[in-house]
């Protein structure tokens, strides 16, 4: 590190560091591509990794194979069995990680995650009501009724948090405490419903609670993609303000940020992003908390980089966890992710404490 930087070299060094940070983004995207290939090979054993990439590319380009050839079968297996859950894993990973980064910045609290306002327990309550009692908000029952219930359930606690914060300005810590209280309330309702139900429903409800991509079909994807794309674009536009918020509410105000209004708008965006994922996949934990932390260890805390790189890392973690979940057994992806993610996270923290990792 130069001790006597000239202005030009500061600009140059700043841009150089930006490129190094973006390298982490590129590596994460390459990681996702590699796992997508491995995932596809697992769907149809008779093809190589490179053939899998070619078949995926050809499908995207609209190439059609002669029926009942190896490539035709591989194409059908890949796109009908594994590709919906691959896409769901990529989108859900990106969305939960972006929501996690947003929530941690909003609350100025490294322990915050997308579920800190009680979203997961609200969604769970909505879904379990549909599963156990058969009560749905819309006229449709079954899977789609449960999805709508979960979405509405997810929005209830965050709605309460926002209403309270509009009536009386609450500190970030108080907002999290309100969310935690609501979370306990919905969790106790869920527990009650699970106690009174039969064994089969209990198993389905439990898998949903842990988080799974087994039930994802192509019709689930458009809503997830649209909400994630719009929501993450919105978050990216606000990364400077999120950085300013990291100085604390009072300092952020003196830099021109209307903190209360900004926080409410961001909470609404975060809630819609998270609810649109959770209602399809169940409450996949760990990712929203850990992905932004992993990224901060690698590239520092500038949200301009933390948000997009967290999205790429979140996608990579979830698609890898789902690949492992699918290939080793029928373990829900939420369980696998925590099993492989926790030790990696732990090692990275130790690595950082030894002075490695940050790019400046």
């Amino acid at each position, binding site marked *: *590190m130069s*001790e*006597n*930087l*000239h*202005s030009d070299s*500061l*600009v140059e*060094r*700043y841009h150089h*560091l930006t490129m190094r940070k973006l390298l982490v983004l590129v590596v994460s995207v390459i990681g996702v591509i590699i796992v997508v290939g491995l995932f596809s090979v697992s769907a149809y054993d008779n093809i190589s990794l490179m053939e899998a990439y070619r078949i995926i590319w050809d499908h995207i380009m609209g190439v059609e194979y002669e029926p009942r050839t190896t490539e035709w079968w591989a194409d059908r297996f890949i796109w009908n069995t594994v590709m919906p859950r691959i896409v769901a894993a990529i989108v859900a990973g990106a969305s939960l990680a972006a929501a996690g980064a947003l929530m*941690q*910045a909003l609350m*100025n*609290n*490294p322990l915050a995650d997308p579920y800190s306002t009680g979203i997961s327990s609200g969604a769970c309550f909505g879904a379990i009501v549909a599963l156990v009692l058969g009560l749905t908000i819309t006229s449709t029952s079954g899977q789609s009724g449960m999805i709508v219930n979960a979405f509405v359930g997810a929005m209830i606690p965050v709605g309460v948090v926002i209403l309270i914060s509009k009536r009386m300005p609450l500190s970030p810590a108080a907002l999290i405490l309100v969310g935690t209280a609501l979370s306990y309330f919905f969790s106790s309702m869920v527990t009650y419903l699970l106690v009174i139900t039969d064994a089969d429903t209990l198993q389905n409800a439990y898998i949903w609670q842990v988080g799974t991509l087994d039930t994802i079909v192509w019709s689930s994807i458009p809503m997830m993609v649209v909400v994630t794309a719009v929501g993450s674009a919105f978050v990216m*536009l606000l*990364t*400077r*303000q999120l*950085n*300013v918020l*990291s*100085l*604390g509410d*009072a*300092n952020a*105000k*003196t*830099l*021109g*940020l*209307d903190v209360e209004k900004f926080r409410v708008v961001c909470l609404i965006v975060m809630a819609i992003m998270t609810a649109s994922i959770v209602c399809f996949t169940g409450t996949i934990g760990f990712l929203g908390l850990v992905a932004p932390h992993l990224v*901060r260890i690698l590239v*520092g*805390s*500038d949200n301009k980089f933390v948000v997009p790189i967290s999205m790429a890392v979140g996608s990579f973690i979830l698609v890898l966890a789902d690949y492992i979940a699918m290939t080793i057994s029928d373990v829900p992806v939420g369980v696998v992710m925590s099993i492989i993610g926790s030790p990696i996270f732990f090692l990275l923290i130790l690595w950082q404490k030894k002075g490695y990792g*940050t790019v*400046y």
Partner: protein
Amino acid sequence: MSGSTIRIDIEGVEFGYSANPVLKNINLSVNGPQLLSIIGPNGVGKSTLIHCINKILSPTKGVVYIDGQDVASTTLKELAKKVGYVPYASSDAFPLSVVDTVLMGRHPHSNWKSLDHDLDVVYETLRLINIEHLAMRSFDELSAGQHQKVMLARGLVQEPKVLLLDEPTSNLDIKHQMEVTRIMRDLSQEKGILVIMISHDLNIAAKYSDHMIMLYDGGVYAAGTPEEVLTAENIKTVYGVESDVIMSHGRPHIIMLDPLFDDNIKPLDDDVYVSSDNRVVDRMERDTIVRNVLKEPARGVTD
């Protein structure tokens, strides 16, 4: 107070927490550019007053005008272009590099992307307060004194007309206290800024300030030049301590007197003392003895 580029008028401002009033009917008019120090004991409302100027707090009564514009009806963004703020302490839950931390001061002037011009402004400011070598360090790796200098740089890159500083030198050693306060004084003249600084170091404040405001019991007890404000009587009333104020290089210099600590004279009873030659003396004679001892050339005090 002289100057004309920026003006702050505080009219009948009151503020309190629950039933406890902190500021009571504050009336002030301040013109820039200059270095103005706000002094007073702990809890008297110094920080509360500057928080009412930059809209962190809203007064329960009264109005603050900046250049004739009511602060209450000014947007935070517009206010941030005029008024910079350097806090006593800053959150570092998610520490950035020094350059990124200082860049945040450009927020009121910039869009989403940081421009090279902003980086140039940051570099020049870091150089001005001699911390350009810290540019790429992480904020959480710095000492408390370096933290304060970085936050000062952040306030300066905001390019404000008014810069509010909440104890900006509290974690600095004496050399850096003087350096930072002198920079603030020079900047107020060179850039035409009205710098308002809360300080507990009366001598540093007296040495560099153009004017001072002494707060006491929620109101303005004294305002004017350092010589007008820093009198032994004012210090006795406001801080409750005995002092001797002498002139040093044309500025008041305060010598604190502590009869309970001084080893040349000891208390015997209420307002009765024993001198080092075992004479019983009254309070007036004690003060004379103490002042004479403190003014000995060996103590290095210069009239």
